[in-house]
Each structure stands twice: as structure tokens, then as C-alpha cells.
């Protein structure tokens, strides 16, 4: 987990030369993926860029500790979804999150999942989607960002732990409320600290503490369960779709690596 200072420094500095060096960096990145793919999916074939899953990520990240990414499954894909795994090849822990979808995931429109991540180095970001038939589909984007992990810090650390665990849940009905796909959002006030920062008062590394498990249910039925890592930005934020239900009420349970549990539910919709 220790971060090679030299390569971090190099990566940060390279920001100015991203365009010139991208082919070189991208080539090196492919090598990481070979081992990573083997570790997570073994010998299973993965169909790349086949249109089943689409990944939106900025080519250059203005703030490497807050990079918005969105995974979309176009409306013409009707299958149910089993899992979605997000990777950032070059991060200290390249597996960002693994999401398992439940019966309330919904079909009949575009499905999506968005979050904000830290990117520690110029890296490929990958979304690997497993559909109900067991097939794996992958979308990849290269993002030029660096220093999002080691350099991650709160703008105002004194307010960072205020309200730790405060969780907000929002529901966004579609333009037509009879539409089958609704959106929800979960926001968790949490430093998601990654164990890479120094506390200058003690000269010790601030211990890692991050959100590791999120369960979202609609009217008691599972929308998704997510296992996550510190590659998710401070104050983890998820935007996702779900299938319309009787009340469209969302329940969220969050567990962090200290074992703290936070729970929240959405305001009743349409009231």
C-alpha cells in the first residue's frame, strides 16, 4: 500500500505534458490490467466496448481527488444486471467498487450509476458489467489526473469530522412519473481517509477509515449492494437508477471500516 514517492512526484509533475506522454503511459497501463483482470475474473472472456456498457469520465481531471464518473447501460439493453465492478488500474487499490444488483434495479430505460473517485496517477478507468446471462462487458476511459490519493485532503479538516456519517438520500422521479426508471442519490458525510496522509502534529499516518459497504433498498427490495474502497472521494456520493415501485422510498445502510453503521431513508415521494 505504500506509495512510491518518486513515481507520485513524477506523475504529478507530468500533468503539464499529458498529451505528449499519453501513449507511453497508456501502454504501460495495459500491462497492469492483464494481471488485474486475471485476479478478478480469471480466464472469463470480456467483451470490450461492445455498447452494452458505456463509461463517461473526463479526459483530464481538474481535481484529481474529485473525478466524476458515470456508467450507463443504454435503454436497448433489456437484460437484468448482475454485477458492476469499477477499476482504476493505477490506484494503490485498483478495485474501486463492486456492485451487485438486486430485484429492484429496474429495466425499461437507460440505467446508470455515477460516483466521484480519486485518481492517483494517469490511469485507465474501467467499468466491467456482468449481465444476467453471465457475460462480461467492459468500457474503458483514460483519465489524466494525478495525486488524488496521496494528496487527498479536506479543504478544512476541522469541519471534516463534523457530522461524520450524516447520510442524505434523494429520489428524482423521471419526467413522466409513470416511467419505469427512477433515479436516486446517496450522499455520505465521511472523510473516506485512505491511510496516506500525515498528521503533522504526531508525524503519524492518519489511519485509513472509509466506507466499505452500502446497501440501497427500494420499498424493502434490494436495488444494489456495494463493496467499496478509498478510491471513492471524500463524502462518498452515488447517483443511480432503480425500478419504479409502489412508494419509491429508498432505505440506505452504510458501514465503514471502523464498523460504524449509518442509516437513512428518503423522504416519501409525491407527498
Amino acid at each position: 500500500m505504500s506509495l512510491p514517492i518518486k513515481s507520485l512526484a513524477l506523475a504529478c509533475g507530468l500533468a503539464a505534458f499529458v498529451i505528449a506522454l499519453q501513449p507511453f503511459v497508456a501502454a504501460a497501463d495495459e500491462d497492469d490490467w492483464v494481471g488485474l483482470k486475471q485476479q478478478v475474473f480469471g480466464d472469463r472472456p470480456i467483451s470490450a466496448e461492445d455498447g452494452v456498457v458505456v463509461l463517461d469520465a473526463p479526459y483530464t481531471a481538474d481535481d484529481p481527488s474529485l473525478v466524476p464518473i458515470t456508467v450507463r447501460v443504454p435503454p436497448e439493453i433489456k437484460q437484468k444486471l448482475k454485477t458492476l465492478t469499477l477499476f482504476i488500474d493505477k490506484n494503490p487499490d485498483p478495485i474501486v467498487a463492486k456492485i451487485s444488483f438486486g430485484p429492484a434495479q429496474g429495466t425499461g430505460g437507460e440505467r446508470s450509476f455515477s460516483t466521484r473517485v480519486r485518481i492517483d496517477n494517469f490511469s485507465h478507468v474501467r467499468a466491467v458489467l456482468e449481465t444476467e446471462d453471465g457475460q462480461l462487458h467492459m468500457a474503458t476511459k483514460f483519465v489524466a489526473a494525478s495525486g488524488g490519493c496521496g494528496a487527498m485532503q479536506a479543504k478544512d479538516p476541522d469541519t471534516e469530522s463534523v457530522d461524520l456519517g450524516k447520510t442524505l438520500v434523494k429520489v428524482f422521479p423521471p419526467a413522466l412519473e409513470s416511467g419505469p426508471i427512477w433515479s436516486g442519490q446517496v450522499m455520505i458525510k465521511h472523510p473516506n481517509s485512505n491511510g496516506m496522509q500525515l498528521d503533522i502534529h504526531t508525524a503519524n499516518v492518519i489511519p485509513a477509515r472509509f466506507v466499505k459497504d452500502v446497501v440501497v433498498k427500494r420499498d424493502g427490495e434490494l436495488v444494489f449492494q456495494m463493496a467499496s474502497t478509498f478510491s471513492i472521494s471524500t463524502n462518498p456520493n452515488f447517483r443511480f437508477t432503480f425500478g419504479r415501485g409502489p412508494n419509491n422510498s429508498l432505505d440506505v445502510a452504510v458501514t465503514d471500516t471502523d464498523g460504524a453503521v449509518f442509516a437513512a431513508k428518503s423522504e416519501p415521494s409525491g407527498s
Partner: protein
Amino acid sequence: MCGRQLITRQDFLKAALTLAAAPLLRALPARADDAAEATEIAPGVFVHQGRYELQSPDNRGDMANASFVVGNDGVAVIDTLGSAVAGAELLAAVRAATNKPIRYVINTHMHPDHVFGNAAFKGDAPTFVGHHKLARGLATRGERYLAINKEMLGAAAFEGIEIILPTVQVADKVTLDLGGRELVLEPQRTAHTDNDLTITDTATGTLFLGDLLFSVHVPTLDGSITGWLALIEELKSRQAARVVPGHGPHAMEMPGALEPEERYLASIAGDVRRLIKEGKTLEDAIKTAGFSERDAWKLFDHYHVRNVSAAFAELEWE
């Protein structure tokens, strides 16, 4: 101004001779053509205006304002530019103005373009002064600041930079006596950063705002947009003969000086709040929020999207 001159063989020999003859003298001599430009905006108050640029080998990190105040007993330097090389040019400007000892080096906040010249003043053994949260902020970001600046400044301008943290950490209003004039230092709540310090020279009524005031150069948000807007409201009621911005002209008049910056920040806050209310995302916001301000500022394309991201991440919790 402060352009680098080609070193002739004669210069080189002169410098070598000086160094050989007087090894205890400063390595960077205060030759007039090496001195940073500095304008006396009020009696004993000198301001150097930095360029509206990102750091580069050409500007050597000279892209923020830096000032010094001369009292009967000594000098206080306020910010030191973005490299030891630029800091040495600022030191040369001080020496061109006075031979009094440099008692204090005050940093208005932690950003490299205001603190990386500190090393140039070490030989004068001043007391380094900053907001009580500056040390934490700079120490946790230091490694990254050094790496970025090494690349952007190039080896020559990066030479000699070191992180020097304040030994006097200001948690409450404090007064420094320079002899015949006092500087009043006030730590502010989180605004541009979480460690902004303002300085008032009592003799001339000059208020140094550091990067709480940007003019021409687009503001950069590394603290709290709501905190900054609230602080601007408070600062507007201050009586000051003149204010010195962290980026902008040598001196400006209150309260008008703060108005463009307030308009910029309010524009972002207003647009972002509306988008959040409409259920829009961070990605939506960085494409539209605050773009009505685009033509009003230099370096807008370098910093604006980041400002909007930071504002969004803050305001979505309201």
C-alpha cells in the same frame, strides 16, 4: 523589471571574487538589476506586483503580489513569491530600499506562490509568521506542491525552494511592532483557504488581504465558498486607506476592490445552488455554472472548473 540578464564573463568574475573575498555574504547579491520591482504605495509600504500567469521557468514563480513594510526598527516582509530565486529578487528589492533588519516574514496563506520564496530570507533569520492552520495545510500538501512546482518551474527556478513553516502561529489577533508603526495580524475563518491571514499597517491604514482579494486574475477556491462570501461582506465594511490584493494591481480602493470577486463567487454559488435544486449533477455544473464571468478574468480556463467542482461539493450539503 525583474528579467534575468545574461551573465557576462566580467559579471561572473566579479561575483566569484565577491564570494571568495566574503564567504559570509549572501550568495545572491542585491544587485540593482536583480531586484524585483517594488513600488512604494504609501510611506514605508512597498508592493511588488506578480504576473497574471501560471508558474514557469520564465516567470520563476513570480505570479503573486509580495510586499514589505519598513519601520524604524526593522522590516516585515508579507509573502515571498513562488521560488527561492524570486524570493532573492524580492530580498534585493528590500535591500535597495533599506538596510534595516528583516524581523518578520509573514505568509498570508499556504499556497506556493506566496511561500516558496521563504528560503531566500533564511539568512536574515527573521521570525516566520502565519495563520495557526497554515503549518498543517502546507505540511500535508507540501510534497505535492514541490513535485508540481519542480516540473512547472524547471530546475533553475526550482533551485533552493524549501518548505519553511511559521514559528509564530497566529490564532488570535496579534500586533507586531516595527518601531513607529505596528502591523495588526488577524486570522480569518475558512474562505480562500482555511489559513488566510490579513495584515493592517496602522501607520498608513493599508490592509493586506492576500488571496482573499483577487483582481484581474480569476479567484481560486481552496476553502469555502460560503465562508468566503460571508467574509467579503464583513470586509466591505472595513475602513482602510487602501488594500493590497494577493493577485492584482499594487493597491486598490475599498470597498469597490472586492466587488468583481464577490460577483464572481456569487455567480458560481447562485448557478450551482439552482442546478442542485434541479437535481443536476457535478458534471452538469462544471459545463455551465459561472460561465457568464468568463470574459471578466484572466486564467479563467485554468481554474474555473475546479472552483465550480469545489463549490458544488460544498453546496450540495446545504
